[in-house]
């Protein structure tokens, strides 16, 4: 039969890839997204909450941290009513200091989301690095990393975070504690969450490392670190994305818990957890809105992010497709 392997007269280079957006819109993931009403609603809720948080300084009706705009006499104004002393209008009422609850929620979600996202990012970076190292090297390195992860996983995350928080209190000088508080919180939550990422990535790495595309790279002498980053990492990121999303929801709740316990962010930068703590003091005296609205926001945020994580897990799992 014909020689179909004759080289072409003039060499042609392969074109560069084009149309990322069109590709994404045509992908199976987008298809499964369009087919799931729950996911669409969850993503709309999550995106609006996140936008609200990010844009808070520009769109919030009040600046709850500007003492000049506050009037203590507005304290405990119920929802959907006008200020008795000015033209302020309180959609979700005002708290004990006369701050607009709606605005504090927007600013509070901002802190909550920032801490949650940074903590999750920190946990992912640490967990993925350790997981890749353990899975690729095996042997003693693997044993040490994974035993630490095992120990870590046998404690509740909140306990570890509290412990780290306590240590940080002792180490950081008192005059810097206020400004460092958020970063301590991020490290504390991050350190209590890395182990599940490490475990997942280690398992996936051990599978990928056996595959021949890794052998092919080893034969041409690619450095192990480059093999891990370029070859193995992209192939183990799927599950990380899924636990990362669910982990974000968990980190937000964990931050709220810590702040509720009073060890989280300082009162000058209230997060949703701080708002809930403040609110619960007034629950029994009838000012329910100070607790109710921040709590609902926290639930909506955690729930919608969690639902997105669930959908992502199903969409990325070829067996369920």
């Amino acid at each position, binding site marked *: 039969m014909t020689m179909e392997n004759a080289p072409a007269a003039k060499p042609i280079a*392969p074109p560069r*890839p084009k149309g990322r957006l069109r590709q994404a819109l045509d992908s199976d993931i987008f298809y499964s997204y369009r087919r799931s009403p729950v996911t669409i609603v969850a993503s709309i809720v999550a995106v609006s909450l996140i936008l609200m948080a990010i844009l808070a300084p520009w769109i919030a009706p009040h600046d709850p941290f500007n003492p000049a705009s506050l009037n203590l006499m507005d304290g405990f104004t119920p929802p959907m009513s006008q200020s008795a002393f000015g033209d302020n209008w309180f959609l979700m009422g005002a708290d004990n200091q006369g701050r607009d609850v709606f605005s504090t929620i927007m600013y509070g979600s901002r802190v909550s989301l920032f801490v949650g996202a940074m903590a999750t990012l920190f946990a992912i970076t640490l967990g993925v690095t350790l997981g890749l190292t353990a899975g690729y090297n095996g042997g003693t390195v693997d044993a040490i990393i994974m035993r630490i992860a095992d120990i870590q996983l046998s404690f509740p995350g909140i306990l570890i975070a509290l412990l780290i928080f306590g240590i940080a209190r002792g180490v950081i000088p008192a005059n810097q504690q206020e400004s460092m508080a958020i970063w301590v919180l991020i490290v504390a939550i991050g350190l209590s969450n890395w182990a599940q990422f490490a475990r997942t990535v280690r398992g996936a790495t051990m599978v990928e490392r056996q595959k021949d595309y890794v052998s*092919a790279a080893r034969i*041409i002498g690619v450095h192990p670190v480059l093999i891990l980053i370029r070859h193995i990492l992209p192939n183990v990121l799927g599950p990380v994305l899924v636990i990362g999303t669910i982990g974000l929801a968990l980190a937000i709740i964990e931050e709220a818990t810590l702040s509720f316990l009073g060890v989280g962010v300082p009162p000058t930068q209230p997060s949703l957890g701080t708002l809930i703590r403040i609110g619960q003091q007034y629950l029994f005296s009838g000012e329910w809105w100070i607790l109710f609205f921040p709590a609902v926001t926290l639930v909506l945020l955690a729930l919608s992010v969690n639902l997105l994580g669930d959908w992502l897990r199903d969409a990325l799992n070829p067996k369920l497709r």
Partner: protein
Amino acid sequence: MSEPLLDVRHLSRRFDVSPPWLNRKLERTGKVYVNAVKDVSFSVKRGETFALVGESGSGKTTIARLIVGLLEPTEGEIVFDGQSLSRGLQGREARRLRRRFQMIFQDPLASLNPRWRVTDIIAEPLRAFERGMNDRARRLRVGELLTLVGLSPEDGVKFPHQFSGGQRQRIAIARALAAKPEFIVCDEPTSALDVSVQAQILNLMKDLQDEFGLTYVFISHNLQVVRHMANEIGVLYLGRLAEVGESEALFEHPRHPYTRMLLDAVPDIDMTGRRRKKVEGEIPSPLRPPPGCPFNPRCPFANDRCRIEVPGLTPVGLQAAACHAVEEGRI
């Protein structure tokens, strides 16, 4: 006759398959080893194809991985063009040597990174060995390689899963050829493919060999395929060479009883009426190889000596066989 390009001398590889330390202590058992490859020697001439044939557990894939440096030998030496590779391919010499050999794997889907575009996959050896090459030159070279293996340069933007099995193996071949190697280890390159595609790939590999003067070590369990590809053949059984020799001679006059059995087991496609001989027994587990000649439990010619003493390769006619019965002239 040309000089040998690859010389494998008394190659052995042992794997530790012991249970974990704690289990060993609790069960009071020692370490357990498998001799995947035991004392294998052969040489491959420049521009020719040497085939290693064997069934499961024969150690053929282990030998392939030893040659390209994915594994290190327990004993023995691999000499490539006069230079020993036994120091595990390290240092400055390594890169110069590495670019001269390549490997093609059995399952093309697993040997191509699913998250990489074909262009990047094929360009990877170029990035490693042609550091001075700019992006444009590299992409031109990739286009040239894709054309060479019968694909089109436009295929470079696609991902591996968008191709059929045969096309994926073509991509793997293009990657192997990218840095212009002289020597390619092919580990069952067609056994995951359909027959008509297998023929395409085998023809392509032969054309490329003629065009670039490539030397192949070709690993397969399929005797018909090997017959088409090889100048010389080594037959492996449980990690040892049973017989080695020139292809023609080995097919005409197989000496070792295992080689004969393999030839008899080839299905009669042309329906000449020859019946496949019923072969007795199965390959023993490499964990517990029989004492003496590894083939003795299935061999119709085995005697007491075969059950005790391991036979060495001895020349018979144009080939060499590791068999007491052949050596003694009993068969």
